[in-house]
């Protein structure tokens, strides 16, 4: 499982980096999205990977070894929400830029041939 998660995070982040270095805004936003997925999974994995362990309990007697760490799960929820909001904001600006400049290049103008 560790190998699969590590590969998934690595491939997504790597593709994200390649995409944000591309000149078109669509590629940029796709890259940012991929990177945000990779980061979210990464945060989740930082609570250590485990199967079949609940993060919360109602019983007062607690053996911590039997439970997943709830904190990274809380963090990743917050990170998803914030990432979602900022990405939506960026989309709006992208559309604004496309309308104002008439180009989807990140510099706001087509490169000279």
């Amino acid at each position, binding site marked *: 499982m560790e190998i699969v998660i590590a590969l998934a995070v690595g491939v997504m982040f790597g593709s994200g980096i390649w995409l*944000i270095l591309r000149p078109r*805004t669509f590629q*940029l936003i796709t890259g*940012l999205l991929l*990177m*945000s997925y990779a*980061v979210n999974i*990464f*945060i989740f994995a*930082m*609570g*250590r990977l485990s199967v079949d362990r609940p993060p919360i309990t109602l019983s007062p007697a607690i053996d911590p070894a039997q439970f997943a760490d709830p*904190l*990274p799960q809380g*963090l990743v929820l*917050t*990170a998803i929400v*914030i*990432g979602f*909001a*900022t*990405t939506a*904001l*960026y989309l709006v*600006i*992208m559309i*604004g*830029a496309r309308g*104002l*400049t008439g180009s989807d290049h*990140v*510099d*706001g103008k087509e490169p000279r041939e």
Partner: protein
Amino acid sequence: MNDLPFLQHFIVLPVLLPLLAGALLIPVKQSRYSLKFACSVTSTILLWVLAAVLLAMADGGYWPDGIGVYLASNWAAPFGIALLVDRLTALMLLLTATIALAVLVFSARRWDRVGIQFHTLFQFLLMGLNGAFLTNDLFNLFVFFEVMLAASYGLVLHGYNLHRIRAGMQYIAINLVASFMFLIGVALIYAASGTLNLTDLGARVALLGNEDTWLLSIGVCVLGLAFLTKGAMWPLGFWLPGTYASASAPVAAMLVLMTKVGVYAVLRVWLAVFGNDAGALAGFGFTALTIGGMATLFFGAIGMLASQDGGRMAGYGAIISSGTLLAVIGQAGGPVLASGLYYLLGSTLAMAAFMLLVELTERIRPPGAALIAITMEAFAIEDKPEDPVGQGIPGTLAFLGLSFAACALVISGMPPLSGFVAKFSLFHALLEVSPTEGKVPGLTWGFIALVIVGGLAAIIALMRLGVRIFWASGDIAPPRLQFSEAAPVTALVALCVMLTLQAGTVFDYLDRTVAGLAQVTTYSERVLGEPPVMRSPQRGLER
């Protein structure tokens, strides 16, 4: 006895107040400028008073060791989020409120009308800034950074035109990537140490095993990348001059403050985590900060010489100031840090005044009417803003020239203003820090030389700009300024002068600040020892 004393709630108010004010302003109609402005300015004045009270409380012995702790939602420290006020925090809050007030008054006659929801975004920006200064929790710091950045995205685009949208796109993309870095760093730190509370982290760092130490140092480095992108260290700061030059004047003045947040976060994390008690990691990364700061200084100096217009020049000035501060943090010593903080105060005030001034001097040339027209169309705002020409104040050119000269003196560090005092005391502290063998390391000499070169570059560039604006523009008509535009600039410049006159008092305060910051164990005692409020059982439930 179990109730929290009333004054203790003051710690959380600098976050709550702008949040409420900003939220209240959203439904107010866009055309009711004066009402919006009145709400916004009231909130900012209250913030200033709060900051002053907190400063008096932190310095006046209200709390033991000058450290006030507020447990959000009454959760004990390492588990819940703790807000922390010490002398440094209080000082930064006061600086923020001062500049915010000046900027707000400046924008009253014109800038808050060229787009929508200026005051709401401004209040949210203040909330993010104050929160970032106050919080003692790394993930909470991330949240406040995002609040601050989201507001700044809106503000950078305020008065929507082609330049702003181009610069804004790049600014936002860079900051989104930096936020990912922030998250990765926080996650790694949590994985290594099992805590996100900064003070708790500082207490645990010496106890970590070999593997976790390794993981922690990687985590902090990645986190540092995020901070340094905000603080514009070379080579992470290429976004800055373009953004500053294209943002509207009041926003640019607030952006100056935002680079200081990056520097502040670096200072906090490094002093808390890699102080003298950090075991194997003590002193980690300080040299890298010094070298990075010096590279930034050099880059800023070259950029300043190369830039033609005022906004861009001010951007490079902010880079120079960031670089100096980072290099000072890298020195990690008491008196050096005190001079660095003094430099921070003076340069931030002067830089903010300069940003506002640049916009005023540009009116000597015919005003950019085209710029406003685009906004009007884009947002279909019916009422046209009043033209900036209205009741002028007399002697505008003399006023502009004098303010310009004062700002230039502070930014370049020439006598007699506070920039000179800052640099002089900085050199003094740098040369005194290593007296043991009577030898000052080469790196320190390099730093001193670079600071001098940076000052020289700044004075050459600013002089050239001044000559071009005031003397070489031929037959210039004095622009007409509003009183509300001239007053904030005057106030900021006057504060720089005050800072020079009261240098002794300020340095005493800063010495106490730095001495307090060095006591890492006191911080953990105060933060982790802060008891949550016990609730007494209510009588009705007892039966």
